[in-house]
């Protein structure tokens, strides 16, 4: 399979270069027609914040992976990029790399499932621009299958890998029936917002936001269908909440031991989870001394994140196994796309129809008429099948455009539901 792949990703290049080479949809709209005209018969461009990858079948057998890189750099010139910032793949290695990406084991955060959607979208984008056909579809369908199997059959995507999600994971180990719990999120910045969204996703319905800038609190409250309380008075409401997450940029403690002492007194000792995901910290860590007060800060939550990342990395061999299985299936299918078995299957298909129809009239006509019909139908079938057969043989005898031949074979097989003997 003469498929090429090039990749600039988090393993090979710093973020500045990755950002500089990122192609948005408008750029891809321009890039694809151009590269199709000059270099690749078909292909797919995957471009995310962490990687830009191009996979494709070259028009000319003399094309090298480096030509694709040069073409990309000509399209989007950037400075300081060097050869080692790219990875180059051909045939098996290109497929393996694509499957690694789709399976989430080549991601910056191992097990990131977002990339699977991005790979699928990239293929559909190419297909809509008529830059991808049957064989490439099969390859990307298999990549998608790898990603799904990795999620379903392994734990590559399990466990919190962000501090805000880890905070919610700890909440779940302390409290149950989250739909009946109340939560206060102090700070409506990016971290606070993520924490609020995670809480809502876990079923906490009563979420209250408090933020120095009221408009930000209102915006977040609207987003998660929550409520707000003024930042100046949130101390007076602490006892109303089972979960308190603080993520502000305050230089001093917003919640002191005195606040928590008073809070627990009013809560009559009911458990309270306090997550301090701010730097510098918002909550005095001494509050952890109180019974039924579960205080955690960035350091402790980072332990969970690191454990989960390690657990995900331990799952890589299982995903590798899935990749090898799917590669074997893909190449078995690809190798079965031989033209001779397909021509035979194609002709057998029509011959079967001819025999079937002749059988239906065998007892309704005389022997003489039957012979004429038999002869006529053979000639008719011969004429119908002549051009497709010749065309396929011509393609098969040609020295280039193997991909075009494969695509014809796939189309033919799909149209007539053909199966070669070796399938």
């Amino acid at each position, binding site marked *: 399979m003469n498929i090429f792949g090039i990749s600039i990703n988090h393993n090979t290049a710093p973020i500045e270069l990755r950002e500089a080479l990122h192609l948005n949809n408008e750029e891809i709209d321009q890039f694809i027609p151009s590269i199709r005209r000059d270099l690749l018969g078909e292909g797919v461009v995957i471009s995310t914040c962490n990687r830009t990858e191009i996979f494709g079948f070259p028009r000319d057998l003399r094309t090298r992976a480096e030509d694709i890189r040069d073409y990309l750099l000509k399209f989007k010139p950037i400075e300081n990029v060097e050869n080692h910032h790219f990875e180059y793949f051909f045939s098996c290695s290109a497929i393996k790399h694509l499957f690694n990406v789709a399976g989430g084991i080549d991601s910056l955060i191992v097990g990131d499932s977002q990339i699977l959607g991005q790979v699928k979208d990239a293929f559909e984008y190419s297909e809509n621009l008529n830059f991808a056909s049957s064989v490439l579809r099969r390859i990307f369908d298999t990549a998608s299958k790898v990603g799904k199997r990795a999620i379903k059959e392994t734990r590559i995507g399990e466990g919190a890998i962000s501090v805000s999600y880890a905070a919610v994971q700890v909440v779940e180990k*302390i409290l149950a029936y989250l739909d009946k719990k109340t939560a206060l999120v102090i700070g409506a910045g990016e971290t606070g917002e993520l924490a609020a969204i995670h809480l809502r996703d876990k079923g906490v319905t009563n979420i209250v936001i408090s933020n120095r800038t009221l408009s930000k609190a209102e915006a977040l409250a609207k987003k998660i269908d929550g409520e707000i309380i003024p930042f100046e008075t949130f101390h007076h409401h602490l006892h109303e909440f089972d979960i308190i997450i603080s993520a502000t940029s305050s230089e001093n403690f917003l919640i002191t031991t005195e606040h928590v002492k008073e809070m627990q007194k009013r809560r009559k000792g009911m458990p309270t989870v306090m997550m301090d995901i701010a730097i510098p910290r918002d909550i005095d860590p001494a509050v952890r001394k109180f019974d039924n007060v579960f205080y955690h800060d960035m350091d402790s939550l980072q332990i969970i994140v690191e454990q989960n990342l390690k657990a995900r990395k331990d799952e890589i061999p299982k995903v590798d196994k899935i990749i090898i299985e799917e590669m074997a299936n893909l190449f078995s299918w690809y190798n079965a796309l031989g033209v001779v078995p397909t021509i035979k299957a194609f002709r057998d298909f029509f011959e079967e129809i001819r025999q079937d129809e002749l059988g239906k009239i065998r007892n309704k006509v005389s022997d003489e008429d039957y012979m004429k019909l038999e002869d006529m139908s053979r000639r008719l079938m011969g004429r119908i099948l002549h051009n497709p057969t010749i065309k396929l043989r011509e393609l098969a005898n040609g020295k280039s455009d193997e991909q075009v031949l494969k695509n014809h074979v796939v189309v033919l097989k799909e149209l007539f539901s053909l199966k070669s003997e070796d399938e």
Partner: protein
Amino acid sequence: MLQTIHTLNVILPFLYLVAFSVYLYDFMKEKRVLTNSKRIFLFITLIIHVLYLVFRTIEFNHPPITSKFEIYSVLAFALVFSYFILELLTDIRWTGYYIIIFSLIFQAISSIYIVDNYEVKEILRSRLLGIHVISAILGYAGLTISAVHGLLFLKLYKDIKLNKFGLLFKRLPSLEILEKLSFYSAVIGFVLLTIAIKIGVIWLPSAFPDYSYLDPKLLATATIWLVYGTGIIFKIYAKWYGKKFIIFSLTGFSLALISLLITKIFESSFHTFY
């Protein structure tokens, strides 16, 4: 039938050993394939254990409560049966091996020392005694399960406080659930113990002329009953949360264990049947 009883007597500890191993292995490794199969295996073990107890009752013409080793077997069954019901109701499958270990120990001791007992004291054939003993055993099974969940609660509580996010953190349900499991098991245990005491108080004076309210076993049981009763009342009316009730429950369980030792010392008690 006797041959079947002997065979089952040998098989049962091994079944509990396998169940314990599977639950332990699943706890350590979390194998999805074991999620349902371990529950099915435990169910089969319970069925076999029921058959064993029924066959003994038929063959020896008395309920299997006439020796401490028969009672150990009933206790082993009661513990796993109670856990199994809890697992079905809550779908929490990770605390099993902490319970099954007790059944394994009790059944193993029972299987080694149990004897075929055709001739027993007439009093041991009493139906009221049967209900008294069975409800007491089930009650203690409930209290044991409460204690196990209480211990798990304390361990997880401490781990979370100390930022230890290990295997227990991953596998155990939330503290709130553990607290509820401990509380409900204690309530069920307490109710059954109340029934056992009630029957005992009604039946014992008529069955034993030397009946005494100062019998060590009676006093110990009454103390345990009082501790649990107080804990449950405070939990419900004084809204105790977290560690407070758990510590009460564990205190009650410790008392139960101590009372076993004390009554062992005072074996001359009228409350000794074998």
